[in-house]
């Protein structure tokens, strides 16, 4: 069963992303949410979601750290990570490459782009 993990400290963003991806739930995709980096890592280790939308600016453990841990330290395979960055903040492309991010998207996110990317990654 394909799974998508949404990681963002802002409840509004979690809700909006969940609502945006709702149509995929009807196609059998499970959507899981996490409020912070630690929770995200625990869910990733546990359930191994295929797609993760990962916010960068989070307290305690930011998105880069989570991505680094997953891709470089734990070396988890088959997981596509989309980093979410706030508009107006230059996304550090080099840093992104370093930690193994697959792609980044700016917030406010384009709902159609999010669904399209999810379909692409999950093959739906």
């Amino acid at each position, binding site marked *: 069963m394909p799974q998508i993990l949404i990681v963002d400290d802002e409840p*509004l963003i979690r*809700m*909006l992303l*969940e*609502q*945006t991806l709702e149509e995929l*739930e*009807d196609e059998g995709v499970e959507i899981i949410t996490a409020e912070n980096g630690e929770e995200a890592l625990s869910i990733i280790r546990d359930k191994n979601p295929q797609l993760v939308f990962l916010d960068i600016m989070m307290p305690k453990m930011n998105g880069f750290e989570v991505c680094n841990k997953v891709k470089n330290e734990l070396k988890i395979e088959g997981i596509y990570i989309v980093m979410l960055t706030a*508009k107006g903040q230059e996304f550090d492309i080099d840093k992104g490459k370093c930690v193994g991010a697959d792609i980044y998207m700016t917030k*406010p*996110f*384009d*709902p*159609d782009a999010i669904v399209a990317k999810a379909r692409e990654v999950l093959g739906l």
Partner: protein
Amino acid sequence: MSTINLKRLLSKKKLIPLIKNIASLYKEGVTIRASDGTLIFEAGEGARPVEYPLTLGDETLGVVCGGEKTAEIIDLLNYIISSEYEKKTLAKETLDKYKEITLLSDLGERITACLNKRQVAELIIEEIRKAIKFDGISVMYLNRDTGMLQILASSNQAYFSIALGAGIAGSVASKGKGEIVNDVSSDPRFIPGPNPMSSIMCVPLKINDRVIGVINVHSVLPHVYSAKSLKLLATIAAPAAIAIENARLYEDMRETFLATIQTLAATIEKRDTYTTGHTERVSDYSLAIGKSIGLTDSQLDKLKLASILHDIGKIGVKDTILLKKGKLTDEEFAEMKKHAEYGHEILSPIAQLKEILDGVKFHHERYDGKGYPDGLKGDEISMEARIIAIADSYDAMTSDRPYRKGLTTEKAKEELARCSGTQFDPEIVEIFLKNSAHKGRQG
């Protein structure tokens, strides 16, 4: 189709373990089924004689089968269901608002870069396309002088200019309020055109309550547009109006600026009537050369200004010298030559003209370095100056003077060719000659 999937709801909220616990407290068996019969959950032992429906408004989402005590948790479950439904509705509305924000954010970014009304209109059409379904769209600008709404950009030929007050668009423009007409055949104002349309949405573009235009969208199907779609269109219309007005102000300012420059140049011609038309011709020739060289629009702009103002310095030359009928003495010629520097001095306080100063000062420099005022050579001379030098000389040669008649085009071209490499930039001369071979004598 129920908007709430009961199974998903119960499993998500980790309710199933909770219900299990409660059921075990009551020591009753509980079965929960969805309305289509799928089993969601089953626990405990015992008979389940009573059926309790789980409802949302008029809809039954599922049923709980259990004993009598199970009744206690039904209210709770129903409450959770309606609460979830509310949350879902809010989430949907928030997402819609979010999409609006994204749209405006994108629009805002792209639109501020545009200083051309038509470009802005085309951009607006592109952005609206992402958010609203239509078969045709147009952005119209109100020309207050003629009272006509003119098309700035549109997706097809269905739209045509319309007078203020006429048709639905004209009506919206005069009333200043957006409208949906979901069946145009029943609206007496509708003016049919070459393409079929059934539903129309029209919103005004306003700056401080003053209408400057409208946006129209239409569909060939009836009853397509809702209050929500009108609101979205109106939301886009606000920044669109600002951007179009901005472009208009910029265009007006540019026009005023250019007209002022040309007036300035005309002052010289009033004093020395033999040079009437000279500035305009030099400017035309210079631009023709510039275009054949392949200069960019911004470079052509600079060239145009420099060529219009190239002789402005003559205002500092005494009439006795400037208007002298015969040949000038060496002293008089030395004074006349100063017009190049005077031009530079006159224009240098104007910050916006900084880039054309070289074109004005050096239009009498020679390619071989024997020109004035500074004796610059070859590429040291700015490109505008090298172009204007040729255009200026060409016009001087082909014009009549009090002491000699003008040369014919052929003779003038021969002279340019002869002085190519010495007085004039050889590459530019070559291009000028090649190009004017296609045209006859101008003016």
